[in-house]
């Protein structure tokens, strides 16, 4: 109870503080350069040069402190030793190159990158296409979209239950093993199955991301001009041709956006692996490996930061692509 009051107090203080800052600083500015009197024109000009910075000041402060500074700081730390005391140059990166777990993580991350965005986009496109054509489409969309609201940890529990294993002879309570054994196979411990266990983890993320892909792609599909589709139908296109040759090419841009967005999620994937296998049995990924080095046992900030910088490097091409797109849109 006490802490809810504390939280409430913080909200009030935060809101009040923000408003006080914006209102107060504007008031001070108007006091310094009153928009009237002999110098009105010059004052307004000056005030207008300063005012934007009052508005974006707090945001810029937060962004630099909580996002820009950490990137720079991590880059620096990755060149230092475990306690961030001595400079070791590129030693951490050299160590990474030779580390078995790091190679495994890179390999798995690449696997995730190949499978998850592709599968999510595919299922999203399929879901968008079918739900747009049925009467209960909106309800269907809601259900497919729903996993988006579920936390990765919650999803981990949900799927671990599906993959649950009971020894042979006992009744299987995991859905997958129940289906598998009813087909006459012995039950499997899916999450320890070498190589394939990665795919069982990926299924969780695909399950979560498909709804997102569906929502965006569905809007894009509906945005295709009626005339194009009518013309194609009149020319005798069958439904498959209509979809793959007319509709899909028209929404390539949107597909690219969906794809890259999911790619970023994949590069940062952490919670799912963390709670379901914790990187054991050959399922390690970069983000979880980094967590291991930073917070488990004796922390090694140098190695942890080096892994973080690798993740950052993988994200950077998408970042540049996004900025270029945004700039093009603004012009």
């Amino acid at each position, binding site marked *: 109870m006490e802490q809810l009051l504390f939280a409430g107090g913080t909200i009030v203080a935060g809101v009040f503080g923000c408003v006080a800052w914006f209102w107060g600083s504007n008031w001070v500015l108007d006091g310094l350069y009153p928009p009237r009197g002999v110098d009105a024109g010059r004052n307004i000009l000056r005030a207008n040069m300063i005012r934007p910075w009052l508005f974006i000041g707090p945001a810029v402060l937060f962004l630099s402190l909580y996002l820009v500074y950490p990137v720079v700081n991590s880059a620096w730390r990755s060149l230092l030793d475990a306690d961030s005391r001595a400079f070791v140059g590129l030693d951490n990166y050299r160590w990474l190159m030779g580390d078995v777990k790091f190679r495994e993580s890179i390999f798995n991350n690449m696997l995730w990158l190949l499978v998850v965005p592709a599968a999510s986009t595919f299922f999203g496109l399929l879901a968008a296409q079918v739900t747009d054509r049925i009467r209960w489409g909106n309800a269907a969309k809601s259900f497919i979209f*729903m996993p988006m609201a579920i936390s990765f940890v919650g999803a981990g529990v949900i799927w671990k239950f599906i993959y649950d294993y009971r020894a042979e002879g006992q009744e299987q309570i995991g859905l997958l093993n129940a289906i598998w054994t009813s087909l006459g196979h012995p039950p499997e411990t899916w999450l320890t199955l070498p190589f394939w266990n990665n795919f069982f983890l990926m299924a969780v993320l695909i399950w979560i991301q498909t709804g997102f892909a569906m929502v965006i792609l569905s809007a894009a599909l509906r945005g295709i001009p009626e005339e194009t589709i009518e013309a194609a139908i009149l020319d005798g296109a069958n439904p498959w041709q209509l979809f793959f040759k007319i509709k899909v090419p028209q929404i390539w841009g949107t597909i690219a956006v969906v794809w890259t967005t999911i790619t970023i999620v994949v590069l940062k994937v952490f919670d799912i692996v963390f709670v379901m296998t914790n990187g054991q049995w050959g399922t390690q990924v970069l983000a979880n490996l980094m967590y291991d080095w930073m917070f488990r046992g004796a922390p090694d900030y140098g190695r942890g930061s080096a892994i973080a910088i690798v993740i950052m490097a993988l994200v950077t091409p998408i970042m540049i692509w996004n900025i270029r797109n945004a700039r093009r849109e603004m012009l």
Partner: protein
Amino acid sequence: MSAIAGTKARLVWVVNLAALALVLLWTIPTFGLLVSSFRDRDQIANSGWWRASMSSEATSFVRAGTAADQAQEGELWVTAGNVLTEGQNLSAWGTNSRDPAAYAPGDVAELKDGQALSVAEDGTYRLTSPTEFTDQRGMRIFLTTTAPPKFTTGNYARVIGAEGLGQAFINTFTVTIPATIIPILIAAFAAYALAWMEFPGRALLIAGVVGLLVVPLQLALIPLLKFHNEIGLGKGYMGIWLAHTGFGLPLAIYLLRNYMVGLPREIIESARVDGATEFQIFRRIILPLSFPALASFAIFQFLWVWNDLLVATVFLGNRKEQLVMTGVLRELLGSRGGDWEILAASAFISIAVPLIVFFAMQKYLVRGLLAGSVKGG
């Protein structure tokens, strides 16, 4: 024409079935856990949730009474009692682990040395022997029992109290609400400046915001934790609120700016001509008109903070009473990996609020997504 109509009718069927298949695939995992969270502990362990509405069958054994329990009836020594607990029905029984269902209820089993055992349908058994029993441990009676479906809310009561989920629920709220509201305020002002004020460096700032959208959080953990320690904030709510504010800002600014740029120029210009100050324009015109965008960001940030595990693990303490719900759930997965009734109920408590928010505010969520905005952990 009729050929086209024919294909069309068939296609409608295919499309409906495909949609149904997708919906089932996407809801069954969650539904299974929901059903399980209401089932009795033993039943979860003995049968799949898809059989929740059927009687569940279980095999077990109990021990008959020992020599101390026997009574003499004429020439026979007799041990008697009941093997069933409440709610169980006996469907078969046996005396040997190799054939635990050898006898039907009511049968009499002839055992060695002239002993005989009978178990009736109501569970009463009668073990007789011509000589006195000397066993210190009673003989094993194997049972195949069925129990009617049993649903309970006890799992929920248990996890909220004993497993600490009630406290975690409050903690999660404490983290989420300020971490949702504060970034909105800061971002709204910044977005207005970036959308409607002319100043050198504006384009650069916008590009910077777009770039920061994708910065992996992982980079920020150690530097910020050190920073918080240096300024005396340490681990705690204030630290996590500030961290979430920082991490949420790029998306907030980006979303709100995109929306505000689309507001009609005439309204703002005419207000300026009428002598309104920028602050008045912001408060009286921009804020009310931007409500949809504010709502969509609020939902994003709420879901993101509520569902977050990484930031909470790093910026909050790790004692049991300090954990947020995702943290408790993770602990339970480790310590009680097989207790599905606990895991299921806990998972449902933690995803209930996001699901309610999701279904109630879906419209804004979709609108926010379509504004071209996205953020992944």
